[in-house]
């Protein structure tokens, strides 16, 4: 390996690592706030990328149907609850929000030909289609068992994951998609060609992390989430609703997932089930941070990216083996350094 290859691999590793870092942050966030180990995080990556690809191909993305179905289900559940509690005036809003908005979006997509829209509008539409799935999934799958043990929530997560994988195959088919680059610019630094798209991924990741930092430090909702993460009961007593915090954290996680998918789809071909592997690598990063520390999780994720990229050069067949076996020494190190005391 000469320096040039080393630098190229490093560039690759850092780019993928940045995506894993974003996902790792989302995973830590969701776990801290809701105790849910969010296995389906990766599906949002795939759905984001594939929805954008469908829009660019001028097809109606399958995610529309998912949005409509889940919206209707929620409207039925919430509507029935409102009927039981005789809050009749809430019903129009419930229907409008959960069925009306998705219908409007679907109508708009049918009316205009999405392929001819500018790229940024397509990205915006893709996010509009995918991000609401996050809180909707929280409402349908997790909220009814929000007080259950971490173990039950984890099994729910796995169930949601396999459901979404099946749905992804149904909507997007088995073929992968690759979206055109956002930018064709490239720079030459020394001997190495720096792709504009790579740089874009890095810049976007850093910007997102900074935005998250400000969200948690400066905004009321961000502080509410931090409070819930620290002490659920205490936060509830202060008027922070557990389900609001759950929905909010799932919205953030879904956004991060969808944006990550949109960012990397010009670099790698995304299949309906690619998200899982990408998400799991974010998990390895998150576990390095003990599912608790944001900076360590992000650093761990970059490390995973680098390890992956260099091992693909040395032993490409065993790339995944090496990345996933990394978790063993990490867990060993964690188990030797933490002392776990069970609360009352």
């Amino acid at each position, binding site marked *: 390996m000469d320096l040039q290859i080393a630098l190229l691999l490093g560039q690759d590793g850092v780019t993928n690592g940045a995506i894993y870092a974003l996902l790792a942050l989302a995973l830590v966030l969701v776990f801290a706030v809701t105790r849910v*180990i969010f*296995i389906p995080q990766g599906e949002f990556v795939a759905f984001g990328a594939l929805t954008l690809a469908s829009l660019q191909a001028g097809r109606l993305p399958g995610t529309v149907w998912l949005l409509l179905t889940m919206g209707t289900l929620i409207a039925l559940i919430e509507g029935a609850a409102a009927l039981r509690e005789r809050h009749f005036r809430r019903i129009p809003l419930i229907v409008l929000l959960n069925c009306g908005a998705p219908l409007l979006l679907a109508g708009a997509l049918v009316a205009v030909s999405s392929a001819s829209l500018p790229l940024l509008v397509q990205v915006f539409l893709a996010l509009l289609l995918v991000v609401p799935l996050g809180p909707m999934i929280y409402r349908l*799958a997790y909220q*009814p*068992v929000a007080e*259950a*043990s*971490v*173990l*039950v929530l*984890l*099994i*729910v997560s*796995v*169930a*949601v*994951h*396999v*459901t*979404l*994988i*099946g*749905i992804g*195959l*149904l909507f997007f*088919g*088995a073929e992968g998609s690759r979206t055109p680059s956002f930018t064709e610019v490239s720079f030459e630094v020394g001997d190495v060609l720096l792709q504009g798209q790579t740089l874009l991924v890095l810049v976007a990741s850093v910007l997102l992390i900074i935005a998250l930092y400000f969200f948690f430090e400066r905004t009321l909702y961000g502080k509410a989430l931090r409070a819930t993460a620290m002490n659920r009961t205490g936060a509830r007593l202060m008027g922070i609703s557990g389900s609001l915090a759950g929905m909010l954290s799932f919205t953030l996680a879904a956004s991060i997932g969808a944006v990550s998918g949109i960012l990397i789809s010009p670099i790698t071909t995304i299949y309906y089930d690619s998200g899982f*592997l990408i998400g*799991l690598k974010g*998990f*390895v990063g998150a*576990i390095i941070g003990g*599912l608790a520390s944001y900076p360590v999780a992000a650093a761990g994720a970059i490390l995973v990216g680098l390890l992956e990229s260099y091992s693909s050069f040395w032993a490409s*067949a*065993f790339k*995944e*083996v090496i*990345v*996933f*076996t990394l*978790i*063993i020494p990490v*867990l*060993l190190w*964690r*188990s030797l350094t*933490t002392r*776990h*005391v*069970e609360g*009352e």
Partner: protein
Amino acid sequence: MRRSVQSTLLLLLFIVVLLLAPVLLPEFYVTLLNYIGLYAIVALGLVMLTGVGGLTSFGQAAFVGLGAYTSAYLTTVHGVSPWLTLPAGLLVTGVVALSLGLVTLRLSGHFLPLGTIAWGMSLYYLFGNLDALGGHTGMSGIPPLQFVELELKSGREFFYLIWAVLLVLVLGTRNLLDSREGRAIRALKGGSVMAEAMGVNTPRSKIVVFTLAALYASTSGWLYAHLQRFVNPTPFSLTQGIEYLFMAVVGGVSHVWGAILGAGLITVLKQWLQDWLPRLLGQSGNFEVIVFGLLMIVVLHRARDGVWPMIQRFFPQRLVCARVDGVRPLTRRPLPEAGSLLLEVKDASKRFGGLLANDRVSFGVRAGEVMALIGPNGAGKSTMFNGISGVDPLTSGAVSFRGEPIEGLPAREIARRGMSRTFQHVRLLPSMSVIENVAIGAHLRGRRGFVAAACRADRAEEARLLHEAAVQIERCGLPEQMYEAAGSLPLGKQRIVEIARALAADPCLLLLDEPAAGLRYLEKQALADLLRRLRAEGMGILLVEHDMDFVMGLADRVLVMEFGQKLAAGRPEEIQRNPAVIEAYLGGVE
């Protein structure tokens, strides 16, 4: 007796049906039943791990793969007899599971399943990329199993082997769960604090169930390799690992028969969905996972115990853990001489971050006396209990018990030395009967292990343990509630069950944290009488209690704590007159 006769008859009927099935059924159904049997073996391990032990694994398919590939490799490449590759596969799987368990089990519970996901992925890719194992195309030409002259070449012949193995494992697992070690595993679900305080080595129990579940999976893999006589990586992927867990959960994750039911339901449903869904949707693919995923979510929302309990209602219930009379009682430890110093606490301090919950507290408890620890809420009494009993060790200070330093020892070691305790927040296993809960207290007085339990060689000892539990329940005045679920009792009675459980450990020092809370007047009197009798026998009792009449009428000496510090100590009459104590309790007189 009639119930057990009925359940034996049902079991015999089941065996007869199994014997006839391959003779009567067409090939297709025999094959289906073979797979159900193979899957059920894996799901059975998960029942023990998840439903009973409260742990879980998504990587069981990888363990199946280890068993299958070990046998495939050794038989085809090195020509080893398939009967020798079974133990070889078990050995490989055991070593892997043991190391994985040792690495994750000290961490909180969710690191184990996450570890198994990563581990499952990594093993799957390893199978697919090692040329020695045939890569993604797999290995063929695995020899069939051979019984003397008979080669098990057809599915019909193999059927008997699979279901015999499954039945042996089901019965063995059922026996194991209904034993001393089984109760220790079941205690894991209620958190490790109580189990440790009763002397259970919880890390060991966790590692043992995890390894056992892996060994079941490995056995299934060995059977699979010689049934198919071909292996490739696909059936050992994470997706299959997840499906195994679905089988256990849908069938009924807390019941051994739920494993068979779940494996049957999911396998048949999968067969059916794979036929119909592609036709319905107009494209081909594994769409059954959508239905499975949704089914799982509904099961977890609506019926977390799975389908088996709904069927179980139609069967006679076997009464597990009944008291047995006429057995030789357990030997008791010799109590120290009355008046000798049992417990000595010197300068005990406990710091939680910036809060000093115990600040250099010193006191002692003698054999044959009741020492009461009182003080306002937040004075640090329960913290002191946790420090002494090793549940949450002290930051500094010395504790010696019967002349031996015990600070820094794990709770189970302290329990072994003859100290037993109750908890302020009751820690019983609500779905287990009172007698089983109390028998957990006697854990350290038995010795028989997992293997003895599985083949029922532990019955004599088990009878003595249950007899002891029954005696302690009667002594504490709850004979009518002996076979009721502990969670169905009122809170006051649950506290009494905790005392019976502590007594079953045959302690010489008893730590009681608010035993009288929630009791009615007559019940309190009965409790006071019991404690007086124990004192007369020479037991030392350390008591935290808020009911002053109860304390002052019973205690020989009283220690008052406030803000983590010792405020006063002495005989009850002295304490009642002590101005500092009066001020702490009633506020100062202006």
